[in-house]
C-alpha cells in the first residue's frame, strides 16, 4: 500500500526538543520512551535554540512548543522561554514535578512584559493519586499538582493534560479533574485530553498498531491535510529536524539537518499517523468529534 503524502503548507508551529529524551519520570505509556538516563537525543544549548528561532522567524512561524523529555531538566529552560517570548508565543510541555519556587520566579521574570502567551501544559493522567502514580510513578501526582498550584499563584494559568484512556475523556473524568483543581485553589481550571499513541513504551503495554491501521489517500482527501499537525509543524532536535513530535524514534521521521530541508511533503506511512488522523496530535479535543463523525 502506498502511503499518501501530507503536503507542507507553511510553518505554524516549531516544536523544539530542548532537553532531548531525558526525563525524571518513566511513564508507562510514554510514546517516545523518555526516561532517566535516556541519551538518545542531545539537548540543545540556549544559543542553538536562538538560532532555530531566527530560522523560524524567516519562515513566519506562529508559535514555539518546547518538549522533551522533560524541558525543565534543561538548566536554561526559563531563560530560553524568555528569549522566545520576546518574539513569539510559547508553550512548554512539562510533567510539572520540577517547578520549584525558584524556577517559577525565573519563568515569571522571563514572561514579564511579553505581548505573547506562555502556555504551560502539565501532564497528569488521572484525577486520583493512585491511578495517576500507577502510570506516571510514585509521588508524581502530588508533585505535579504542587507545580500547578505554584504556577497559578504566580499568575500563570497552567493547562492540565491527560492522556485519554478508553473511558478517560468521559464528562465525569473531566469533572473530576476540574473539581480536583478547584480543591487545590486553581480557579480557572483548564484541562485537555491527549490521544494515546501506541508506540514507544506504550507499544509494549498495548501491542502497537496493526498493519491495516494506516491513513489512506481517500482518508486524507476526506479530512483535508491542513487538519494534520505535519502539514504546518516540524520538530527540531539535537540530531536534526523531524516531521513531528510523535515519530522521533522512527528513522524515517527525520527530514534533514536543517529546518529548511524539512519543508517538504511527508508520507503518512506509520500506525501513529492513524491516531493523529482520528484524534489530532495535540489536545485538539473537538477536532476529534469532527473526525469521528
Amino acid at each position: 500500500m502506498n502511503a499518501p503524502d501530507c503536503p507542507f503548507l507553511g510553518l505554524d508551529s516549531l516544536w523544539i526538543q530542548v532537553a532531548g529524551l531525558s526525563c525524571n519520570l518513566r511513564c508507562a505509556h510514554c510514546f517516545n520512551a523518555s526516561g532517566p538516563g535516556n541519551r538518545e537525543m542531545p539537548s540543545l544549548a540556549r544559543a542553538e535554540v536562538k538560532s532555530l528561532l531566527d530560522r523560524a522567524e524567516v519562515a513566519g512561524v506562529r508559535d514555539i512548543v518546547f518538549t522533551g523529555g522533560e524541558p525543565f531538566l534543561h538548566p536554561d529552560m526559563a531563560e530560553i522561554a524568555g528569549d522566545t517570548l520576546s518574539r513569539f508565543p510559547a508553550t512548554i510541555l512539562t510533567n510539572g514535578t520540577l517547578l520549584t519556587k525558584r524556577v517559577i520566579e525565573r519563568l515569571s521574570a522571563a514572561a514579564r512584559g511579553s505581548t505573547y502567551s506562555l502556555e504551560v501544559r502539565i501532564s497528569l493522567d488521572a484525577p486520583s493519586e493512585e491511578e495517576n502514580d500507577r502510570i506516571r510513578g510514585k509521588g508524581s501526582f502530588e508533585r505535579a499538582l504542587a507545580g500547578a498550584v505554584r504556577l497559578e499563584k504566580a499568575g500563570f494559568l497552567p493547562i492540565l493534560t491527560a492522556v485519554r484512556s478508553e473511558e478517560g475523556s468521559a464528562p465525569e473524568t473531566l469533572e473530576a479533574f476540574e473539581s480536583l483543581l478547584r480543591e487545590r485553589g486553581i480557579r480557572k481550571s483548564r484541562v485537555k485530553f491527549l490521544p494515546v499513541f501506541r508506540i514507544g513504551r506504550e507499544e509494549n503495554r498495548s501491542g502497537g498498531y496493526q498493519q491495516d491501521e494506516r491513513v489512506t489517500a481517500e482518508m486524507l482527501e476526506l479530512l483535508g491535510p491542513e487538519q494534520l499537525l505535519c502539514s504546518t509543524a516540524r520538530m527540531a532536535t539535537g540530531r536534526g529536524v523531524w516531521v513531528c513530535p510523535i515519530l522521533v524514534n522512527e528513522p524515517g521521521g527525520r527530514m534533514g539537518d536543517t529546518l529548511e530541508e524539512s519543508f517538504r511533503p511527508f508520507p503518512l506511512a506509520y500506525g501513529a499517523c492513524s491516531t493523529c488522523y482520528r484524534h489530532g496530535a495535540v489536545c485538539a479535543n473537538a477536532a476529534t468529534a469532527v473526525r469521528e463523525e
Partner: protein
Amino acid sequence: MGERVVSDRVALFGGVYNNHLALAALLDDASSRAPEIFCLGDVGAFGPHPDRSVEILREAGVPIVQGNYDRSVGLRRGDCACGYTDPRDNHFAGLSYAYTFRNTSERNKDFLATLPETIRLRGPGGERILLCHGSPRRQNEFLWESLSPDPFLARLLDDTRCDILAVTHTGIPWKRRLPDGRVVVNVGAIGRPANDGQTHVWYAVLDLSGEAPDATFLPIRYDHERLAEEMRAERIVEPFVKTIETGWWTTCLEILPAKERARGMY
C-alpha cells in the same frame, strides 16, 4: 472583480451575534464618523431574534463579509463551525447555533449563503485592504493578539498581497503595526462585550489620512438591559445573558490563550 476605492475613513465591525440593539446604535455612531461601513461577519450567535439583525444590515445596505456562522446557517449546516477545540465550548456553541438556525427565515438563510468570504478595498493612497472574518486563509481561524507574532502576521499579509488586514471572529479587539508599516486590526465584536467587565461593545475606524494607516477602537453603549430582557423572554440560556449584563465571558472560554483568559473573570 474590481476593488472598491474607499475614502480615508472606513468603519469596520464584526460579530453581531444577533445583538440588533448594538447594531442599530453602531450604525448611528459610525455613519457620523466614516462615509463607508463594512461588516466582517457572524450576524448570528448568542443573542435574540436573528432576523432583526440581518434585516437591519440589508436595509442599510452594509456590505458583509461572510463569517463561519453565516456560512453554516446559509448552507443549512449542522453546526456553527466556530473552530472550537473543546467539548465545553462546543456545547454552548451548539445551543446558540440551534437557536439562531431555528429562528432565521429561509430568505435570510439564502441571503447569508451568498455573502463573499473576503472583500478587497483600495485606500486613497493605494493601500491594499483585505477584509475577512477569521484569517485570510481560514474563515474560522482565531487571530488572538497573544498568539499572533509579527513574522506570522507578515506571512499572512505577504501570502494575500495586502497592506492592511482586518478580521474579527475572536471577539476581542487589538491592532498591530508591523515594522514595515503594514497594519493588522482585529475589530472585536459588537454582539457581546470584550470580556473586560464593561457592558459596552467595540468597533474600529480605519484612518488612512495620515502618513501611516492606523485604527481607532470606539465603544458602543446600547440598551444592554433591554437585550438581556429579550434574551430571557426567548429562553436563551442564562450564561449568555450574564455576559451581556456583566461584560465577562462565561462560556466558550477554553479557546482563549493564557493572556486573554487571565484578563477575564472566568
